[in-house]
């Protein structure tokens, strides 16, 4: 190979999509096909480069020079105020966590862009769509290679912006514009927490460099209470971005965007930024166990709540959105139990199977123009391929062995059993079963049974190859990516010690000493969940309807999303709009009418009174001048 490409050059990765964004945003009307092929080719290039980085990373490891904490591989001073008092570096940082994120982001992004060529065919603003996707990928890659917090925050807001633009892609639709606003404002609440956390950490350590902060915190040089508060603020940002309770409300609404966007941003990449952030700071969280417990229980509440809401939602994409929220909750539970490797592993597998599920649902929507499961059904006869890959994704989500989701979810469950109260394990295992139930429901209602909307069914057709090819590839990844953590697989790929240790920082229990009883229990739970789902929703869903009538209050609670959206709307209406009208009254009456208008009126009145001094008679003016000269003379005499 002529040109060296490795960890040193990792800054090139975000630069390529950033350049593509500029080119596509400005020039897309001039390019053939509005430049979609440029986006796809550019992303494919980035995937290739990521693999070169991966090779370089593992070769460093093989050579025995590997530092487990990673290293800053590229940096220059971006801002330097007061001779080193306030330095912001621009730096890149590569370690195992980065090496999980880079392939996930780039592979899913490439799949989604290729899929979008088919899905978005003939849409208006076609070129702009790809431009914003490139902007998103650029910001996301900057985020995961950032070596310092300010750079990370910049990228953090960048992905938020791209998310906002893409949720509101169909901004002519009122609901899409509102959903975009809701997502932006809700995550902004978390982002304020993140910013406060960054400032608090800077105040204590005097640096923004993540590794330096971690080193100082681990050395115990920061007051523990102070550190706990800072880390909880940092987690607030993570909770906002990763849609954790109580800031989870934006993610289901974010489904207003085009479906491939949901797959990329709101399932596989952006929403796991919070997981990434907490994982990045996991050595610090290990020092402040109160903050870690906060993460654990927030994750647990989110996992349970979201899974239960997924059980009653009828919009196919919203079910998947709740599922995403719930699975993110799983990851945070893992982080809260200190199992960073398990969280990152689940992040990897979840990205593949959830992107697969979203793109599969996109195919359904594309074919039928329906999103409500009430008007779907029986589609496996019309779309056998989509049904097959969607089922693969569902099995991975439900946690059936050999599929990727099983391995990673089992890791999380194992970690909670080992390092958290038993109640946490029991609740989480129950949630995993619930996951199997709602996944089964979704598959049955969409692809099985009798078609409920004959027109949509007749209209349905299998998607073109450009949409099916990414689905096939993701289906393969959703099946096999779980094996990556096996030591044998890693060794077969030429990495002594396996990828589990290399990339996920620690050996996963499955892959060192299999616990058959434990895995068997989890598998049994998943099968029971699928059984329950089958019993309730196969055929005409008779039992599900009966169950709904049996517990109408519970059903209403779930359908109304635990009344949290209503609660927030109430708070906004009462408190914020109330305070706003008070301030508006103050502004109108005191500032405007008294201060500004009052001043103007006083000047006007004085002018009316004083204008009579102007008599037009020359002796009067001369007298005035004489008095003035006299006054000046007196002042001069007084001063001398």
């Amino acid at each position, binding site marked *: 190979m002529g040109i060296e490409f490795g960890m040193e050059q990792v800054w090139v990765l975000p630069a390529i999509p950033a350049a593509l964004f500029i080119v596509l945003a400005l020039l897309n009307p001039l390019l053939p096909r509005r430049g979609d092929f440029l986006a796809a080719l550019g992303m494919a290039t980035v995937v290739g480069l990521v693999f070169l980085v991966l090779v370089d990373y593992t070769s460093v490891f093989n050579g025995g020079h590997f530092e487990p904490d990673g290293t800053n591989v590229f940096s220059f001073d971006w801002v330097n105020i007061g001779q080193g008092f306030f330095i912001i570096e621009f730096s890149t940082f590569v370690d195992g966590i980065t090496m999980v994120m880079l392939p996930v982001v780039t592979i899913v992004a490439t799949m989604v862009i290729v899929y979008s060529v088919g899905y978005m065919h003939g849409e208006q603003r076609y070129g702009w769509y790809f431009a914003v996707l490139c902007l998103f990928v650029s910001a996301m890659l900057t985020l995961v290679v950032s070596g310092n917090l300010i750079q990370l925050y910049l990228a953090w807001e960048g992905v938020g912006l791209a998310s906002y633009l893409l949720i509101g892609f169909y901004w002519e639709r009122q609901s899409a514009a509102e959903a975009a606003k809701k997502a932006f404002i809700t995550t902004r609440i978390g982002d304020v927490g993140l910013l406060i956390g960054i400032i608090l950490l800077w105040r204590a350590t005097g640096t923004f460099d993540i590794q330096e902060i971690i080193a100082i915190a681990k050395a115990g040089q920061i007051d523990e209470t102070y550190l706990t508060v800072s880390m909880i603020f940092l987690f607030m940002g993570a909770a906002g971005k990763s849609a954790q309770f109580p800031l989870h409300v934006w993610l289901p609404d974010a489904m207003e965007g085009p479906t491939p966007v949901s797959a990329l941003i709101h399932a596989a990449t952006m929403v796991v930024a919070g997981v990434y952030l907490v994982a990045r700071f996991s050595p610090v969280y290990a020092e402040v166990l109160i903050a870690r417990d906060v993460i654990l229980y927030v994750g647990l509440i989110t996992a349970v709540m979201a899974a239960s809401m997924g059980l009653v939602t009828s919009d196919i994409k919203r079910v998947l959105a709740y599922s995403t929220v719930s699975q993110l909750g799983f990851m945070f539970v893992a982080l809260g139990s200190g199992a960073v490797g398990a969280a990152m592993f689940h992040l990897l597998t979840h990205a593949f199977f959830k992107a697969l599920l979203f793109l599969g649902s996109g195919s359904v929507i594309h074919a039928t123009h329906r999103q409500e499961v009430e008007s779907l059904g029986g589609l496996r006869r019309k779309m056998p391929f989509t049904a097959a890959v969607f089922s693969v994704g569902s099995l991975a989500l439900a946690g059936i062995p050999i599929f990727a989701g099983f391995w990673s979810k089992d890791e999380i469950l194992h970690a909670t059993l080992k390092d958290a109260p038993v109640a946490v394990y029991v609740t989480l295992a129950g949630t995993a079963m619930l996951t199997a139930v709602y996944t089964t429901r979704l598959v049955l209602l969409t692809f099985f049974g009798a078609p409920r909307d004959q027109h949509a069914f007749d209209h349905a057709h299998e998607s073109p190859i450009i949409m099916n090819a990414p689905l096939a590839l993701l289906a393969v990844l959703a099946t096999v990516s779980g094996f990556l953590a096996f030591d044998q697989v890693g060794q077969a790929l030429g990495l002594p010690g396996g990828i589990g240790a290399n990339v996920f920082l620690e050996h996963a229990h499955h892959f060192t000493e299999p616990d058959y009883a434990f895995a068997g229990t989890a598998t049994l739970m998943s099968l029971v969940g699928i059984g329950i789902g089958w019993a309730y929703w196969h055929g005409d869903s008779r039992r599900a309807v009966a169950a709904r009538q049996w517990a109408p209050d519970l059903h209403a609670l779930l359908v109304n999303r635990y009344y949290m959206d209503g609660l927030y709307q109430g708070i906004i209406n009462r408190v914020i709009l109330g305070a706003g009208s008070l301030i508006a009254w103050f502004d109108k009456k005191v500032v405007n009418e008294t201060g500004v208008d009052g001043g103007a009126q006083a000047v006007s009145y004085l002018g009316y009174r004083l204008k009579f001094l102007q008599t*037009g008679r020359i002796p009067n003016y001369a007298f005035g001048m004489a008095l003035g000269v006299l006054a000046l003379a007196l002042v001069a005499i007084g001063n001398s």
Partner: protein
Amino acid sequence: MIPIENFLVLSGLLFAIGLFGVLSRRSAILILMSVELMLAGVAINFITFASYRDTEAFSGLVFALFVITVAAAEVGLALGIVLRLFRERRTANVDEASSLKW
């Protein structure tokens, strides 16, 4: 040597008489003449201080010459204005020319 006070009193008197004239007369011509008296008083003041206090330099004397020059120019201009006023209003009474007011 004549004491300096004599000259100062003279210049002050000329200035005061001029000022009184400017304020009390209604005829534009008389006002102009009063202004000339004031200027004469100022010029005497300059020369007085120049010859008593600042004998080395000529700045006071030069200023007096300036005053005379400017006074000549001013009278030329002002008489022109008075002439226009008289042509317009058939009077040189300044009270009649009071339209420039509120």
